């Protein structure tokens, strides 16, 4: 069934969009990532204009993250205190990110820098997570107990605060910094930033994996809601019809994903996320390295 999207001004198969939303929703529920790093390239592939794809996927992320967050709330796996601290950093960061983004835009080449950002960050994070999870799995196989490091350098900083749900007593400076750097990146790359925040929370802050997912969802909802409003008011590129189709698939997927996630071991969950991140990274890197079929591209004239 073909459907005409009023803002994107293209006609797309409705079931294809529902399916895309569903897949991304499952991932969002399983891993606590918004899925923006996945859905935006997929929408390009379907033929949605890039500006509309970026703006609309942020709206879809709000929906699937909210659905997943509710599921986590029931399980009490959300550290609200940590969430607010991260969010405070995140809003500062996305403000800074917007300034950086507009500066890059004035230089031209913003597309290339965004893609390079993706390749570098996805590559590093995916690689680190993959090898760390492999090591953890091997340790559990040998029968030894998984030991979580209790003392990082971040624990020596001032302004300490107790995060009861996470079982942490650490300074607020590292979470604010994590939130801010994710905010910067999400403004530049047009994503929620969960795929960066989840590993940062696990490896930098030492939070338990189960709490990390719910907490990052909380932060993602606010950051993406803020971005949606920015896109809607400045560029008019949010397509409600596209968003509704994606999010109907997405919210259902998120519920399924959360249930799958609960049944799986933390290490398995992490290794799957790592593989997924590496796959997207590889695809983007190939696009940069291989000769494109069509060397020319069309775009609107700006300014």
């Amino acid at each position: 069934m073909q459907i005409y999207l009023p803002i994107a001004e293209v006609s797309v198969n409705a079931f294809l969009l529902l399916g895309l939303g569903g897949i991304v929703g499952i991932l969002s529920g399983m891993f606590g990532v918004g899925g923006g790093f996945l859905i935006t390239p997929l929408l390009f592939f379907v033929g949605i204009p890039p500006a509309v794809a970026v703006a609309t996927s942020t709206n879809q992320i709000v929906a699937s993250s909210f659905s997943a967050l509710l599921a986590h709330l029931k399980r009490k796996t959300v550290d609200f205190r940590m969430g607010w601290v991260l969010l405070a950093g995140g809003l500062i960061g996305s403000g800074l990110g917007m300034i950086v983004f507009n500066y890059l835009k004035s230089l031209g080449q913003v597309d290339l820098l965004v893609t390079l950002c993706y390749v570098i960050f996805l590559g590093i994070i995916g690689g680190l997570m993959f090898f760390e999870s492999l090591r953890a799995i091997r340790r559990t196989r040998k029968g030894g107990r998984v030991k979580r490091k209790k003392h990082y350098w971040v624990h020596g900083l001032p302004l300490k605060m107790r995060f009861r749900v996470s079982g942490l007593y650490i300074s607020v400076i590292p979470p604010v910094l994590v939130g801010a750097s994710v905010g910067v990146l999400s403004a530049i790359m047009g994503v929620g930033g969960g795929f960066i925040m989840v590993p940062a929370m696990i490896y930098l802050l030492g939070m338990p994996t189960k709490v990390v997912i719910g907490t990052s969802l909380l932060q993602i909802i606010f950051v993406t809601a803020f971005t949606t409003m920015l896109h809607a008011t400045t560029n008019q590129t949010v397509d409600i019809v596209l968003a509704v189709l994606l999010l109907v698939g997405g919210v259902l997927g998120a519920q399924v994903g959360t249930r799958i996630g609960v049944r799986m071991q933390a290490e398995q969950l992490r290794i799957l996320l790592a593989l997924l991140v590496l796959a997207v990274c590889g695809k983007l890197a190939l696009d940069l390295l291989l000769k494109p079929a069509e060397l020319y591209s069309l775009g609107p004239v700006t300014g």
Partner: protein
Amino acid sequence: MRLLSALTGLFLMALPAKAAEEIVLGLSQAEVSITTNFDGSEILVYGAVKRETPIPDGAPLEVVVTVSGPSTPVMVRRKERRFGIWVNTDAVEVDRAPSFYAVVTSGPLSEVLKRIEDLRHRISIPRAIRSVGAPMEIENPTKFTEALIRVRTASNLYQVIEDGVKVDEQTLFRAAIALPAALTEGAYDTRIFLTRAGDVVAQYETVIDVRKVGLERWLFKLAHEQAFIYGLLSLFIAITAGWGASAVFGLLRR
């Protein structure tokens, strides 16, 4: 000699005398409505040639139909390999390119239309695109216009259909034009040319109105005129859908 014939042609065109042959036109629809399930549309352009004298001897009557969507400037960028990766390097702004353009003829375009007539009436696709000043440092700017045509032809936005017009007894003609699903709104200029031996002997212009209707129209207007409310609406839908799915699944589990 060619110049002389061109001048004569111009002189003849300028004559206010009543044309020997006139076009009487019909359209299967003068308006295309873009609804939610819009999936392209086919427009039938048909008509007859009205004349008070017998059919002239010599070259037979040929018909050229063009349909052109609203024109906008387009930025064409070229990728090149730099440091091992493919990067956008040169860019050329094409001043005006129609969002949709179809040329339907009753025979091979080069035979039914002389080059000079093409230049005058801007009929073929390269003529319908206007590209002036490319930056000095760009070596061959025509490559960029060619790329524009290639990309849009690949997505069916630019079409040349030779033999797409059926002409009966040099009097009746009809042509079907397929509009793709990815249409933009606006007035689509439709022109019909009658030619003999490559010269335009009569022409007729009309407009097909393409517009969004119903929900499509309402959302488009809201997004542009009440952007803040539109943004809040999309967030509201997102949150409701998220909550709704969670509630439904909660009920199902019980």
